[in-house]
């Protein structure tokens, strides 16, 4: 089992330059400590226009700062929105390669397509085609990283032959993932040999089925990259405290705040009828969990808050289901004071981490022959 941090970078109103800076600095301080404590990953999302919920619109800059401040923690660009109105694929290839160089080969590349009308509408993107453009992007990126020169004629973008520079530090290229929120996306991940970056807070039963389906399906995948990245990561809240009751109460406050902010987002399906967005993604579970900031009922099972013993039990359960990595959300709207976040990280590292010996993820990275690398039609 590996442990990571997961940042939305949530900033409460009223927004002032100092408050934005303080929250960003808090996050960087947490990442620096996590690096020293042995956490494996720090992921940062790409979101736009999501007031209070996420002010992380330029994750590559935040992650560059993380890389410079740390020595061994891997930096996860999670996820890059693979929709042409958001990001041109050449720019994705260039800036991820640069980040890989600056981090000395510590980059993980998460991919996705955005789930909210707030974002898709803001960029003028067509919700009907985001799955298709994502598919095109993830097939192009490895070749843009690996080939000396690259040209492409596709449905969503094209380019004449050029040399895309720089090339990533990691060879053949950084590990690739896809964000999994909507049902069935774990199958998309498996079919393409991508890691499953779970962003929902589903309970054990639902996650077990997703993981089982992913593991089975990936055995016969056609990888889009040069290797299969068979890994399952899931997201959780972390608040670790010596006293179980204190830990649970603060953890629930964190979870409730995050969930409540998340439910304010306008999911694409809520306003734009599209076969490409038949699911509300993570929102139904959050709405069940988030009856309000003062909700007192038990949230989704398996949350990593409480005292170390309680958290160990939860993590052991996730491990038994086949989860390789848990990425933790540490704060939302700064409801957890920074010193308590830092103390929670230290206690978790001291009391919980030793119970989970590191082991190589199943099948990762498994090289495949270049002949098996899937190539988009029309090149």
């Amino acid at each position, binding site marked *: 089992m590996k442990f990571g941090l997961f940042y939305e970078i949530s900033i409460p109103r009223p927004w002032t330059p100092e408050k934005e800076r303080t929250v960003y600095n808090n996050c960087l301080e947490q990442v620096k400590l996590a690096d020293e404590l042995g956490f494996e990953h720090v992921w940062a999302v790409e979101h736009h226009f999501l007031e209070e919920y996420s002010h992380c619109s330029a994750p590559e800059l935040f992650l560059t700062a993380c890389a410079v401040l740390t020595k061994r923690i891997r930096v996860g660009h999670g996820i890059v929105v693979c929709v042409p109105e958001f990001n041109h694929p050449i720019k994705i290839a260039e800036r991820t390669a640069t980040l890989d160089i600056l981090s000395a080969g510590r980059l993980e590349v998460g991919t996705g397509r955005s789930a909210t009308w707030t974002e898709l509408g803001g960029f003028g993107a067509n919700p009907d085609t985001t799955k298709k453009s994502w598919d095109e992007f993830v097939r192009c990126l490895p070749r843009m990283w690996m080939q000396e020169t690259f040209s492409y004629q596709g449905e969503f973008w094209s380019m004449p032959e050029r040399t895309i520079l720089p090339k990533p530090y990691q060879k053949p290229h950084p590990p690739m993932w896809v964000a999994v929120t909507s049902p069935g996306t774990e199958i998309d991940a498996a079919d393409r040999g991508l890691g499953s970056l779970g962003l929902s807070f589903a309970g054990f039963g639902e996650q077990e089925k997703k993981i089982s389906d992913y593991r089975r399906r990936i055995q016969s995948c056609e990888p889009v990259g040069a290797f299969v990245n068979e890994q399952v990561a899931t997201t959780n809240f972390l608040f670790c405290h010596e006293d179980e009751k204190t830990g649970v109460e603060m953890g629930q406050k964190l979870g409730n705040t995050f969930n409540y*902010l998340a439910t304010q987002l*306008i999911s694409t399906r809520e*306003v734009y009828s599209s076969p490409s967005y038949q699911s509300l993604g993570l929102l139904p579970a959050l709405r069940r969990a988030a009856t*309000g900031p003062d909700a007192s009922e038990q949230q989704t099972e398996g949350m990593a808050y409480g005292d170390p013993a309680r958290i160990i039990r939860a993590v052991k359960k996730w491990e038994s289901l086949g989860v390789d990595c848990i990425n933790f959300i540490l704060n939302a709207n700064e409801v957890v004071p920074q010193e308590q976040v830092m103390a929670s990280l230290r206690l978790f590292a001291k009391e919980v981490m030793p119970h989970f010996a590191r082991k190589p993820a199943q099948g990762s990275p498994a090289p495949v022959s270049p002949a098996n690398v899937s190539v988009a039609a029309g090149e």
Partner: protein
Amino acid sequence: MPLYGALDLTANPAALPTLAHLDTEAWTLPKAEMLQLLMEVPRTSTESLLPKAMHPALPSYVILAVTKYSNSPVGPFNLAMLRLGSRAGAHPRGFLLGAVASTEAAAKELRGRWGFPVEAGEVKFVRRHDRIMGTVKKGGRTILDGALVDPQPVSGTDVQYINWVTAANAPLDGKTQPMLIQVDPKYTFYKAERGKPQVSTFDAAAWNADGVTLADPIVGTCSTVDTDLPRIRFVMDPLKPVFQGTRRIRESRADE
């Protein structure tokens, strides 16, 4: 935490519909044809229209709906509504700003049973192959002329309708007082279409939405559905956040 609306419904309760009781009987409304046009609107124009208990949708948007009810307890009627996209706590809702019904009987019953801010007028629902149109006149003046352009078939599972919230006076705890009422119809789809929303006339003031201007179009849909207007299950204090001020007054239906 999220923003809240600025409208104090208790400041002018006389402007609200009044319900005699909260024991409204359900209406079954088979084979209704529902045209909905969703448009983004400037946020500053909607802040004063949303009750203090609710959160605004970000970005702000409105739902212009024209529905043809071919069969109802008060006979066939057409109904046009303007709803403001919003949140009741964690849940997406359309706050009903204004409505026009094509018959006096429908207007009277909708106002008195569910608290619709509705008046009688001329409401037309016209289906053509190239567009589906909704036009509304009140006092002889056109207050809405809109259409779904180039309708293309989609699956009913592609369409999501959010629940509504009305504002009305109703008796509770021995006192008639302003409150928010959740109206949560069910839908069984027979047919659904999607296309571009187009609005050529929109008189905001006539919809109790003075100052609202339509901005970027989102999408238009038209569905044929079996639907209903159900019994009232939840009411909310108009001044408290709904996670603090919601009262369940009736158990959910067996299918919920």
